């Protein structure tokens, strides 16, 4: 028992390290934030998969912050309603938007009149996770890797076809074809399960899928994942190669982050960053996020802001390349 107490666990050490790293800023700022109920904004309807994620963090952050956190669902317009609501809220750190950074950034280009200037009106606080999109084929496909796939599509001329889900899938498919100098017909699906039977029947040559669905189907043995879109291999799926390893220069990372209105003071942002960091560093959170097909992602507020700006820039090109019309 005492031995256990004395043995420094990884978790305790990390917590100590985090505390040490943050103590100067905390000492100088002397903020009493948070001292009342915090609201997390979720851009998805109650009960959806993404809502589960936001509620997980609401519960965990509430414990470390010692304050009640309520989740307000503001679904609609691809997340624009929630983003705009956050941007217009009082910049005091009590209205916190937990959402996909790439989707927030993409909205700048998916709409003719985006309601907010994402990089200017929102301030990044912390990351949550990073997850790649995945290129997969049916289990009995002759294609072994991306090189095989490229050869197959080339051989079929313009006649190959592929399934996509979500805007990120559309984009990854289009970028891959363009970089490899290929042509194929895209068949968009709204969810992975919709696409499964068509993939399995052999009517489609490959599929660009979200990680949650792709990994679960690879476990079922119905598909094989050929590559991920992230620049490096994921920690949670170390055996799946990246597109880059095959010479296709793709760096498309999906990531979730925490955002507040721009005018929020530094000390509040730093405190909130630390609260999330404490939750993100627990093994439970790592396990929970791996279930969503991604790795835990931790950083400083500046890093979040930089990635947000970079993602906005990236998506300008993507939307043009994938010929996604604006609304």
């Amino acid at each position, binding site marked *: 028992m005492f031995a256990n107490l004395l043995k420094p666990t990884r978790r305790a050490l990390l917590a100590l390290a985090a505390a040490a790293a943050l103590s100067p800023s905390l000492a100088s700022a002397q903020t009493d934030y948070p001292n009342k109920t915090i609201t997390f904004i979720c851009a998805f*309807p*109650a*009960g*959806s*998969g993404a809502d*589960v994620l936001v509620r997980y963090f609401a519960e965990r952050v509430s414990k470390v912050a010692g304050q009640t956190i309520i989740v*307000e*669902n*503001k*679904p*609609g*317009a*691809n997340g*624009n*309603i929630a983003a705009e609501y956050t941007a217009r809220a009082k910049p005091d750190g009590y209205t916190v938007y937990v959402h996909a950074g790439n989707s927030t950034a993409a909205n700048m280009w*998916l709409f003719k009149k985006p309601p907010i200037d994402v990089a200017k009106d929102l301030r990044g606080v912390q990351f949550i996770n990073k997850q790649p999109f995945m290129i997969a084929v049916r289990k009995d496909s002759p294609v072994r890797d991306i090189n095989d796939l490229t050869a197959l599509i080339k051989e079929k001329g313009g*006649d190959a*076809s592929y399934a996509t889900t979500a*805007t990120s899938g*559309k984009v990854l498919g289009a970028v891959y074809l363009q970089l490899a100098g290929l042509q194929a*017909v895209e*068949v*968009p*699906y*709204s*969810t992975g*399960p*919709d696409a*499964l*039977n*068509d993939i*399995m*029947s052999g*009517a*489609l040559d490959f599929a660009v899928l979200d990680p949650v669905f792709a990994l*679960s189907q690879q476990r*079922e043995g119905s598909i094989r994942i050929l590559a991920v879109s992230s620049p490096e291999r994921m920690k949670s799926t170390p055996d799946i190669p990246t597109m880059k390893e095959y010479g296709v220069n793709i760096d498309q990372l999906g990531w979730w982050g925490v955002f507040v209105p721009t005018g929020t003071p530094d000390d509040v942002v730093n405190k909130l960053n630390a609260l999330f960091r404490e939750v993100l560093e627990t093994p439970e959170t790592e396990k929970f996020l791996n279930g969503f097909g991604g790795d835990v992602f931790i950083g400083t507020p500046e890093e979040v802001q930089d990635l947000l700006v970079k993602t906005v820039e990236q998506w300008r090109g993507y939307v043009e390349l994938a010929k*996604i*019309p604006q*609304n």
Partner: protein
Amino acid sequence: MEVFEHLATGFLAAGSLQNLMFCFIGVLLGTLIGVLPGIGPIPALAILLPITFGLDPLSALIMLAGIYYGAQYGGSTTSILVNMPGEASSVVTCIDGHQMAKRGRAGAALAIAAVGSFFAGTIGTIFIAAFGPPLSAIAQQFTSPDYFALMLLGLIMAVVLAHGAVLKAIAMVLIGLLLGLVGTDINTGLTRYTFGISGLWEGIEFLPLVLGLFGIVEIIRNLENPPPPREPINTKFRDLMPNRQEIREAYPAAIRGTGLGSILGILPGGGAVLAAFASYTLEKKISRKPAKFGSGAVEGVAGPEAANNAAAQTSFIPLLTLGIPSNPVMAIMMGAMIIQGIQPGAAVMTTRPDLFWGMVASMWIGNLMLVIINLPLIGMWVRLLSVPYRLLYPAILLFCAIGVYSTSTEPFMMVLMIVFLIFGYILLKLGCEPAPLVLGFILGPLMEENLRRSLVISRGDPMVFLERPISACLLVAAVLMIMLIIFPQFRKKREEAFQEE
């Protein structure tokens, strides 16, 4: 036997204290709704949908399913005792059930209805357990053209089997299809029919639609035509035992009703109401003394009661295996599953076996609960009929409003609900039954997606629908169905069948 292994998984999941409790709450609420006239299972499920959002998916589905088949039970109680059907599938039970009650056999009629329903529920559960897995294996062969053909058949069946005028049913399906098109188009990412309203970007929300069309309109309907107060026939617990003669007449009818109901439940467009009517017609036709019907025939209670319950169970099969709702109640169940983050379909059985088998097992447990709670509590259910509507209606109205606002804190959703409320009232005045509209609304976007997808994959060649055997068979069946409506002999039969309502 794999079936028993699966059922064991199911009973383990459904047998947890929490799930037993939600099953109990579900069947209790269902019975209540079945007893109260005016509120059928569709508005009831719509009204109660929001309170299941906080539950885990299995508990939520167990409760919603319990409400549905619980309502089938409750409806028979008031049909027999008060000659007032609580919901549509109990309408036929009134005919002979209330006559039995008048002859002093109320207790026997109630017992026959309850035990017949329990028997049917048990067989229905076994039916799902036995036919679910093979059907789901077939479902995995379904590709886009097959899905399109199946949904087309489903919509046509819904029209053929709908109550009232065919033309109105077709109009309702088409309006439903059109409403389903609102929102972002999956192929291009462009929005359609949104009129610049951001609340419509992701399509019309399901909840405001069903609550407006069914929940609140139901109240207005009852306010306009208040149900007349009727004196219930007194009955005591010890009168419940049917005599030998009655048992001898009841059990073959219950078995026939179960068989008929199980099959009609699976068919697209089928369901509890159709099964009850079909069973009554069958019993009357094969009876040696058809004149007895209408004056207290035991078969006229046992058959339809068994049939509606069996169909209530088996109508879950197409939803759980193909992801296609076969009737409007299942369309609401599908909405509930999607809200819970579960895409109904063949994948449910492999990825969430606890959910699939847990739901199947819970139906049997729920049926058992119903027999146990219903028979001794008959007196209480009858007294519930005297709850004044001035208390009931505001409560339901409040519940609808909270339900819509709590799922998305957007005032626009309330506006949407009011729009559908007005639309539903107009439909009521025009005598249009909005149930096929919900089916069209749910199936419309799926149909469009699968149609366009099939054509993209085939590079625009429509022969793809006839080249695939599954889709070709389904399309042939759809054409046969259309011929049935067009040919006068059948049309007359159809009108006769629905006349008895």
